[in-house]
């Protein structure tokens, strides 16, 4: 229990450090929404004082306020549970934007992640057990290529083939305009139909790395003494495979947990390509408009979930693999 508290305490510290760093780092990006808006008002004929008042009124911050003061204000708000309001979507709380986008990302990315993980694991085991055959070579090559091709290339290629050439899947959105979101078949079917291409992209770009990692760990495990003992003891093939699969998959567990944490960040490229209203698209839009509060909110979400996923992975790993001492 003490260990858990210590771990959570150190995680909190890391989150504070990372978010503080990102707060200052994003302000080093070229461009500044306050100055851009301030100059726009000047160009509209306002005098400097009027323009400054206007920006302060709209953004709730002075254009010339020092960054450290902005940080103190932001951090105080954060401690009170507020991530501020969006610059681009005037007046809309960042938490509202994030919670509106989050479900779309979580559903698609978790399905994509699970499918790519399962496919990668199965293909990795097949490739390892048949490692001198043509099948192993083919699986490895496909896995390597799928892993190497950037997500946005895969997304555009799928879109071109399945939307422009074959007219099978829609090009954008999370559901049809005629459907009302809710627990009704029309909406659910429309959502499944619309998410086919984004999920396929996650699967295609994700399974390769799992397959290659799984193959590598399976080959290591296959030559372990306990596997040889199992063979010599004449255990059934099914039992041997269970031993092999369970022990090979363990090293991938941490990676999987980190991916679960990372999925809260969505994918800027995939969601952007398919106009999918998730966290990745929100993040991309906020970067484009230098919407600092939204960017900070997205960073905070991703950082927190990855760090917490790491903690959970560490805690569970000792339970899953008794060889690891707690």
């Amino acid at each position, binding site marked *: 229990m003490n260990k858990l508290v210590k771990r959570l305490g150190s995680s909190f510290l890391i989150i504070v450090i990372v978010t503080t760093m990102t707060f200052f780092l994003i302000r080093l990006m070229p461009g500044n929404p306050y100055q851009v808006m301030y100059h*726009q008002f000047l160009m509209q004929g306002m005098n400097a004082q009027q323009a400054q008042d206007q920006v302060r009124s709209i953004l709730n911050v002075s254009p010339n306020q020092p960054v450290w003061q902005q940080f103190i204000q932001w951090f105080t708000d954060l401690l009170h549970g507020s991530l501020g309001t969006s610059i681009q979507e005037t007046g809309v709380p960042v938490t509202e934007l994030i919670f509106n986008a989050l479900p779309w990302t979580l559903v698609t990315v978790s399905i994509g992640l699970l499918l790519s993980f399962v496919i990668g694991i199965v293909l990795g085991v097949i490739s390892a057990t048949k490692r001198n055959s043509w099948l192993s070579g083919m699986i490895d090559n496909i896995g390597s290529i799928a892993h190497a091709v950037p997500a946005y290339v895969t997304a555009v290629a799928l879109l071109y083939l399945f939307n422009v050439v074959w007219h099978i899947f829609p090009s954008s959105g999370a559901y049809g305009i005629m459907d009302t979101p809710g627990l009704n078949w029309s909406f659910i079917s429309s959502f499944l139909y619309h998410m086919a291409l984004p999920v396929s992209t996650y699967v295609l770009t994700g399974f390769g790395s799992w397959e290659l990692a799984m193959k590598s760990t399976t080959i290591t495990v296959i030559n372990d003494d306990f596997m040889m003992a199992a063979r010599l003891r004449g255990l059934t093939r099914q039992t041997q495979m269970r031993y092999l699969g369970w022990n090979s998959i363990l090293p991938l567990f941490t990676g999987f947990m980190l991916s679960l944490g990372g999925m809260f960040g969505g994918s800027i490229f995939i969601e952007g390509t398919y106009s999918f209203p998730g966290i990745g698209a929100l993040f991309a839009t906020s970067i484009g408009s230098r919407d600092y509060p939204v960017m900070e909110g997205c960073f905070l979400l991703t950082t927190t979930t990855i760090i917490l996923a790491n903690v959970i992975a560490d805690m569970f790993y000792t339970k899953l693999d008794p060889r690891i001492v707690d």
Partner: protein
Amino acid sequence: MVLSNQVSKILLAASLAGSTLLLFAPQASAQSTTISIAGGWQTNGINNPLPQANGNIIDTGLSYAPLAWYKYTGNYDFWPVLAKSWKISRDGNTVTVTINPKAKWSNGSSVTAQDVYTTFEMQFIDGNAESWGLTGMRIINPMTIVFYKDPQFLYNKSMLLQQILNNNIILPAKNYASLLPSASLIFKTVKASNGNPKAKATITANNVLTQWQKKLDGYNFQDTSVLLYDGPWSFVRSTSAEELYQKNSYYVYANNIKAQQVMKLNQTSNDVTWRALENGQVDYAAVSFSPPVFKTVMSVHQNHFVAAPQSTGMSLLFNENTYPFTMVQVRQALAYMIDRPSVTKIGEPIETPSVKIPDGMTEVANQQWLSSTQRSSLNPYTYNPQKGTKLLLSVGFKKTANGWVMPNGNPFTMNIAAPTFSDWDAGIQAIASELTQQGIKTNADVMDSTIFYSTNGAGSGKFPVATRWWGGWNVYPSNTYNQIFFIDNNYSVSNSGQIQKQTGPNALNMPTAILVPKFGWVYPQKLTVAIEGNLSARAQNQAIYQLAKGYNYWLPALPIWNQLAGRTYSSQNWSWPNFKNDPSLLNMFTYQNPVVVFQSLGLMQPK
């Protein structure tokens, strides 16, 4: 073998999953009376009445209507929409508008003078109404309203009518009146905000106004069913990809509207619309193209391209604080040495015209405001490097084996600053290459557009040469000359027309009087102020001609090309009017959503 069987099973399962997914595919529900559009125009008025966090964005141009649509032609004509008639007083200081009794909201109630009053109260709060010189309004009867303009304020009749009738969609008092303070408080605060900028009362009034403005601009109606619409289509719902609108049967031109629904594609990026056009899913789109995509799109689904006139484009602004751009001959030499048609072909390869006469006005405006004799008296600066060379030599430049040397002994080099707009980037790269070949070592200094504009862009006076929008976004030339002779030159004019030099950044440092050889003195600021006011047709023509002449000689900026409004329409599902020979219809592609105007006028029929 066992493994092959397993693989086969996996493949079979995958195929089954894919087939099942396809079964989810909703059946195509497109109706013959649905029109699909992408990109386009949003009328000025409100920010967004819907909860934006839910991804809802309303195209106010589809759901709300103005009092009238301006045709943007020389005869100052309008098509009436919600207004039945209007009258501007002889002195141009009062405008009386009578609402069409047939104009209704989407619940069947009448559009009244109170709705117009509420709409313009919001324009006062936003500070817009004062910029047109409005001082107040009065409701004469439920269907008639009078607008009052400050007699001291310089603003011509045509511009004032355009602002009142065309530029503002009329919003429902039922939705917005409760968000506003009382009328007397609004006008009292507006008046106080115009006092001495340093006075405490003025600052307080401005703060109050900005708070009201913030509330209005950011207000989201959580229950969208309460929203009333006076435009042709009422907003129904939206997703991240598209918006749906349903015909408003109470719309004043409802009988002419043939599209029962409008499906609007959310153009998150150009390629979203390109794909939809390639798939034949869009009837009208406002999107630009790369040449290969353009060719593909135009070859399918009866897609056609319209290059509608637009009052803007790219120019090079010369900072006359910086040597050698202090010399008019240098600016003129550069005008001769830059091959504008070639540069345009590179920057804007699809149907964009280069500037024929660099006088600050677009070709459409030139045709409209100047006679052929006047136009022919202007210098077109046709590409002629020899003339450029001659001009440079005449002011002491020397051409050496290493390029041009300035009279002060330094090499003549140029740095052209520009934001990362792909067309501008390509254009100035071409200019840089052209000038470098002619011995003026030129560098294209392309920077992130946020950085460029965060330093106030070309208007900052920080760059010796920078790219700049020109043309004023309006066919009437007061905007374009106001931009160059006032804003960039850091002058201001008081409401009563007093010209004042401001302190602060100055991108031009132009004189207040220019001696044009064989023509005489031209006073750019005075003339710009004059054309803002109400002049006789003859005096207006003379003032505009003098401004054109002064600009054409002095060349404070060199306009390179005239940006066109590139629009795509498909005649696959709808017949379109013959707009090519009708400038007023063609202008709608630039200034309005043509689908709204053409359907309202009964000019579009389903096929």
